[in-house]
């Protein structure tokens, strides 16, 4: 049994690491990548002045947003108006509580028993993530309603209708993954993919899951709620300065979480390749510090690919029309997800 003080320190270390990496590094770098890629796609430079390659642009923007005048437009419902950005950030912060970012490890012999690289080892793992992402509807709905602006209310209604519709499809896709691995513990789901990644039996589920996470994070091609041309950025029209910045931050950190979930569920987490494990090439990811670091970086690289995919898709695909969007969610993805569960169940029983 380990010393309790060390375990507490380890827990705090994981929290500080995760929190600062996601909020302090991934989100700002993603914003920078987003703008650079936009520049690349549109044959212009993008931000390249602040720091090397413009890397410090997000930092400069953050300082600017804090220093801006805290405007509260007349006619807003003030307490709710101030509450909404906070309600948007909290689920974003909570959502990475159960994400494991590496294999169980002894950190090169620091611990006697392997410790999980995960903030909270909840029995309900995956369902906790589903719960927290479903709570992010409130920030959006409340922001729109509190702004008391026609564009905002429309944007909020559209956003929440869209988020909940696609949450359903994502949920049913997740059910089929639970069937395949027999657990909702993300660590066990990754372990069950040591031989075969779930993307192969669960290809249909992935086809449903990918658009669903794009729609849940309100990203192009499903960014109807923010459609600048029609709704002047929708639910956060009336938000400026750091209050807008908080919505932005939560959007990017939820993007990170769902990318990590996609990797954990379908692409084997930190497993090397389908059919090839770390042990096969002589790397001990459990007991050696270097091995653990390699596994964590491999996982991070997979997540980074998914994050890049988000950006790539945004600057490639046009926006859907609203009826097409709801049609896709309810008439295409939902039946496919139901059908997929039946197929996988039938295959497991009869084959």
């Amino acid at each position, binding site marked *: 049994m380990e010393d309790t003080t060390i*375990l507490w320190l380890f*827990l705090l270390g994981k*929290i500080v690491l995760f*929190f600062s990496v996601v*909020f302090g590094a991934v989100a700002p770098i993603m914003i920078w990548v987003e703008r650079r890629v936009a520049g690349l796609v549109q044959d212009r430079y993008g931000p390249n002045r602040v720091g090397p390659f413009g890397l410090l642009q997000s930092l400069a923007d953050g300082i600017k*947003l*804090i*220093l*801006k*005048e*805290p*405007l509260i*437009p*007349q006619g807003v419902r003030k307490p709710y108006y101030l509450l909404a*950005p*906070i309600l*948007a*950030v*909290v689920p974003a*912060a*909570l959502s990475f*509580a159960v994400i494991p970012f590496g294999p169980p490890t002894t950190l090169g012999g620091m611990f006697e028993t392997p410790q999980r690289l995960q*903030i*909270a*080892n*909840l029995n309900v793992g995956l369902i906790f993530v589903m719960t927290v992402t479903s709570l992010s509807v409130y920030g959006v709905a409340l922001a729109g309603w509190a702004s008391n*602006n*026609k*564009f905002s*209310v*429309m944007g909020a209604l559209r956003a929440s209708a869209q988020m*909940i519709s696609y*949450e*359903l499809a994502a*949920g*049913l896709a997740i*059910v*089929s993954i*639970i069937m395949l691995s*027999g657990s909702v513990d993300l660590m066990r789901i990754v372990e069950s993919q040591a031989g075969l990644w779930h993307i192969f039996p669960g290809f249909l589920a992935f086809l449903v899951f990918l658009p669903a996470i794009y729609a849940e994070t309100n990203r192009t091609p499903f960014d109807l709620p923010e459609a600048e041309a029609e709704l002047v950025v929708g639910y956060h029209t*009336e938000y400026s*300065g*750091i*209050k807008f*910045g*908080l919505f932005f931050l939560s959007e990017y950190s939820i993007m990170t979480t769902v990318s990590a979930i996609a990797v954990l569920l379908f692409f084997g987490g930190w497993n090397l390749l389908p059919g090839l494990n770390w042990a096969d090439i002589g790397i001990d990811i459990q007991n050696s510090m270097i091995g653990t670091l390699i596994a964590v970086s491999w996982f991070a690289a997979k997540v980074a690919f998914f994050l890049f995919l988000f950006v790539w898709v945004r600057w490639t695909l046009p926006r859907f029309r*609203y*009826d097409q969007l*709801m*049609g896709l969610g*309810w*008439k295409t993805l*939902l*039946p496919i997800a139901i059908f997929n*569960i*039946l197929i996988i*169940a*039938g295959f*497991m*029983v009869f084959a």
Partner: protein
Amino acid sequence: MQIFDYSGVLILLILGVLTGVGAILASEILGSRRYYPRKDSPYECGIPSEGADNTRFSVKFYLVAVSFILFDIETIFLVPWAIEFQNYLQSGEGIFIFFIGGLFLFVLTLGLIYEWRKGLLDWNQ
């Protein structure tokens, strides 16, 4: 070990709230202030706001929300089923568990077909 795991969640919750409140407070303290009334008007593309502010919206949105919660609960019901699935497979009662889940999914599909036929899923009128 339960206390460890949930205190991790609690600390994250507190950190999240602190980030939100702290950022807004910092902006209140550090932000510059140059006030004039135009700044505070609601933004509707520069023209003064027109029309009643309590516009009402299509009941379609309500139907989406209802379908969501009903299907969401069905999803939650499917999770225990999915977890038990492999246990039943191994004990040779795969047909039983398949039948249970299949019937449930059939009822769920009936609901979806009903909505579809009734036109609740059409948004392009």
